[in-house]
């Protein structure tokens, strides 16, 4: 039977007894899409009464939580089950996860569709999962109470068991499933008091670790489907370019090659196995149409952006009433240009997708961040209805925003459709590096002023870059108009917390033709660098300690200040360092979390920077798994540090110059700083943790380099040439 109840105005719980005697609790959540929030574009409402998270209790007491979010390392396969285990009151050792199929039932309430991104999983699913779990627990208690003929209130629960202390009776959840399924779920279940938490807020072991230490964890590249072929695609290296003439004779002659399929922007080789496909690809001769902008180069883009910063009006993202007046009255004005380059995601697992396109349906396997969009894209590409597309989510070998894209999904689908067999397409590292959707390069023209006492009186920041939403908009069914703001281009700049007097943040949009996309922490990945370094410059111009200057202008932002103070205290801010070393600090809020970092660096005579220690303090609201928070903060920092030290995608003749890890360097073990993470105790609502660790490290390191050497880096990556001792 099925019973349902209203949990709040728009979410519903259903309890269903399924084959095998397990009790399944389904939950429906209200949704609002990001597109709707940002751009006022309505998406079709999510159909009511469809569950979007499942809790399954088996007769043996094992609990399986079906997770719709994708696991890309951020620990969501553990954190969501932890939430369930807490209010259900079961031993976490008896809890396991199961990856959900693509279904609106699992839509991320913030996005209205299944999306793992925006550091939103815990934020979105915490309250509804707790309520569903508490309701399930109350039903189990009610079932026991009914059997015993005692009031439910006189019963207690612990570790998956209901007790009646007075009569000394006990029943395990697994014995109560049938009775519980006949009850009506409570509308307002009582949530556990936070002081009684046994799981939430405690460091718990990740449920996915065992499969990741013995080779059994399945990533897209590991998927095996009967009759499957493997493909490699020689992709057009030119942005917006196309396939011209193809000579496929030699490729077809390679043993194991089954088909050569010309796609619009590449030529696919489908073969019995990967190496045959790769050899076939290497044997191809293709002439390319070099695209609409064959001379596109990094130098040209820099000039275009500089020109835009100096001459274009742009759009105003934030403005106070009298910038001009403040500018004219400033006793001291500081000006600078900050530059952040294009960056690649470089997930460890190159883009990979498996598609089995049949006549009227399709089944696909992939590490994807947006399952329902995948279903739609596969359906459209394969010519089958989206609801006939079964999407299987594998583990993601890194996400960072890259697997939100659909290019590799389309690749696999087209090739399977072309050959009529299941096909696994595996990109090479070079394909991945040259065919990414890059973090937008950003030119920042900045000026700020101080009065005679060194107090800030104005701040003017002009941000020039590509708009991610201009490229992605059509996928959501809208077009970013020239007078429309895309806040992903300047987020972190227009909401700068400091009180710096009159403030204006402008955005000049430039369409370079370079595909740009979401890269871990999105706009904050570059705005933290420009703003936190320039604030540091302003502090020095005012003759003030960078920490003191920040705290003095953060009176209205206690969470920024709290993170700063904790990081500074733990790092020993102000204490002397050995000669040649410097300490730098930065704080940045993104995705609802406030993260401060202090970096200790030294610079050798050749200008090479060594980051010795990073102290991180984060206020991410109420924490589910502190061990995951620590891991994500540290990992996010490493992602940002790698970019600050080495990351740069450059263009020449309309193509990316970097190819692999030898020219797009990764931070390695021997360069890894010591790192400590301190969590600000907080009962505030949840912030994200997957991304907020990334933004503050570049400015913290650059500010530390200034402290160590007196040299101010304003362009990333940090170049040893700029720091070399003369």
């Amino acid at each position, binding site marked *: 039977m099925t019973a349902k109840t209203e949990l709040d105005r728009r979410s519903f719980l259903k309890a269903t007894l399924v084959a095998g005697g397990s009790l399944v609790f389904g939950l429906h959540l209200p949704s609002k899409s990001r597109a709707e929030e940002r751009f006022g574009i309505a998406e079709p409402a999510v159909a009511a009464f469809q569950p979007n998270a499942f809790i399954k209790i088996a007769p043996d007491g094992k609990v399986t939580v079906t997770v719709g979010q994708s696991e890309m390392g951020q620990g969501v396969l553990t954190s969501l089950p932890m939430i369930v285990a807490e209010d259900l009151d079961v031993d976490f050792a008896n809890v396991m996860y199961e990856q959900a199929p693509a279904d609106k039932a699992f839509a991320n309430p913030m996005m209205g569709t299944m999306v793992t991104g925006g550091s939103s999983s815990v934020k979105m699913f915490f309250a509804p999962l707790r309520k569903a779990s508490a309701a399930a627990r109350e039903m189990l208690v009610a079932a026991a109470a009914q059997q015993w003929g005692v009031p439910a209130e006189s019963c207690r629960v612990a570790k998956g068991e209901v007790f009646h202390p007075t009569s000394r009776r006990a029943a395990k959840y697994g014995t109560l499933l049938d009775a519980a399924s006949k009850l009506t779920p409570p509308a307002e279940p009582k949530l556990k008091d936070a002081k009684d938490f046994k799981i939430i807020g405690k460091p718990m072991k990740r449920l996915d670790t065992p499969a990741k230490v*013995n080779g059994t964890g399945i990533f897209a590249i590991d998927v095996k489907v009967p009759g499957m072929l493997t493909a490699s695609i020689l992709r057009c290296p030119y942005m917006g370019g196309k396939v011209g003439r193809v000579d496929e004779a030699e490729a077809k002659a390679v043993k194991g090659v089954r088909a050569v399929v010309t796609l619009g922007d590449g030529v696919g080789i489908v073969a019995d196995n990967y190496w045959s496909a790769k050899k076939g690809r290497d044997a191809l001769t293709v002439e390319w149409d070099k695209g609409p902008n064959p001379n596109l180069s990094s130098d040209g883009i820099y000039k275009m952006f500089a020109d835009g910063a100096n001459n274009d009006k742009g759009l105003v993202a934030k403005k106070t009433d009298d910038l001009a007046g403040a500018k004219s009255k400033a006793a001291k004005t500081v000006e600078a240009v900050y530059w952040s380059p294009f960056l690649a995601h470089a997930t*460890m697992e190159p883009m990979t997708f498996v598609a089995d396109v049949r006549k009227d349906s399709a089944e696909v396997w992939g590490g994807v961040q947006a399952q329902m969009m995948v279903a739609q894209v596969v359906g459209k590409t394969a010519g089958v209805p989206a609801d006939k597309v079964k999407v299987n989510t594998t583990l993601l070998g890194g996400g960072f925003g890259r697997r939100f894209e659909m290019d590799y999904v389309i690749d696999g689908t087209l090739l399977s459709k072309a050959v009529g067999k299941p096909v696994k397409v595996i990109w090479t590292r070079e394909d991945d590096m040259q065919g990414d959707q890059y973090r937008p390069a950003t030119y920042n023209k900045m000026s700020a002023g101080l009065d005679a006492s060194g107090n800030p009186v104005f701040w003017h920041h002009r941000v020039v870059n590509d708009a991610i939403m201009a490229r992605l908009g059509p996928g959501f069914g809208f077009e970013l108009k020239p007078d429309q703001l895309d806040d992903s281009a300047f987020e972190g700049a227009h909401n700068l917390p400091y009180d710096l007097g009159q403030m204006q943040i402008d955005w000049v949009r430039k369409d370079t033709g370079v595909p740009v996309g979401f890269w871990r922490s999105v706009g904050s990945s570059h705005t933290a660098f420009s703003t936190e370094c320039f604030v540091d410059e302003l502090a020095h111009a005012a003759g003030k300690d960078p920490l003191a200057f920040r705290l003095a202008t953060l009176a209205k932002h206690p969470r920024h200040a709290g993170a700063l103070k904790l990081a500074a205290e733990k790092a020993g801010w102000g204490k002397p360092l050995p000669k040649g070393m410097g300490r730098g600090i930065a704080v940045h809020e993104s995705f609802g979390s406030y993260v401060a970092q202090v970096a200790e660096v030294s610079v050798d005579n050749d200008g090479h920077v060594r980051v010795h220690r990073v102290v991180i303090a984060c206020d991410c609201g109420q924490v589910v798994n502190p061990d995951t928070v620590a891991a994500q903060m540290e990992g996010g920092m490493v992602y940002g540090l790698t970019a600050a030290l080495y990351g740069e995608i450059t263009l020449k003749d309309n193509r990316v110059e970097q190819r692999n890890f030898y020219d797009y360097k990764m931070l390695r073990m*021997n360069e890894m700083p010591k790192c400590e993470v301190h969590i600000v105790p907080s009962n505030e609502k949840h912030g994200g943790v997957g991304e907020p660790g990334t933004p503050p490290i570049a400015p913290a390191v650059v500010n530390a380099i200034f402290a160590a050497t007196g040299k101010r880096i304003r362009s990333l990556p940090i170049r040893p040439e700029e720091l070399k001792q003369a």
Partner: protein
Amino acid sequence: MTRLSVNRKAYEVEADPNTPLLWVIRDDCGLTGTKFGCGVAQCGSCTVHLDGEARRSCVTPLKAAVGKEVTTIEGLSPDSTHALQKAWIEVDVPQCGYCQSGQIMSAVILLKENKKPTDADIDAAMSGIVCRCGTYNRIRDAIKKAAMNGGAK
């Protein structure tokens, strides 16, 4: 046909002798724990053992493995009880997990040759394996933990 021994099991594979061992292990032997990351020996995700020495299987031709014993992550222990696997679980090292087979296989060689590695030893032994999630400090901790717990087994 080429004869190959992987995790003490004999295989006869049709692959050309110059095929990278990585793709033979994955596609012909069906052992997918060994990962492809770069194809040019830059990232180390593909690390396996050849007669007890670490090899980047993405650049090792099949012919170089003939007559030798190949060990992959699947062959490290039957039940994930190698001291390093246990330490990896205890420290909760992996995030996305994609590079971790290579990390563990590299660490095995380190502990085989050095029962009490220092930080400098760990740097020298482990800097060939890239972890994009940034789990290096936990890898370091896990190696030390495994060393304390007896290393190899």
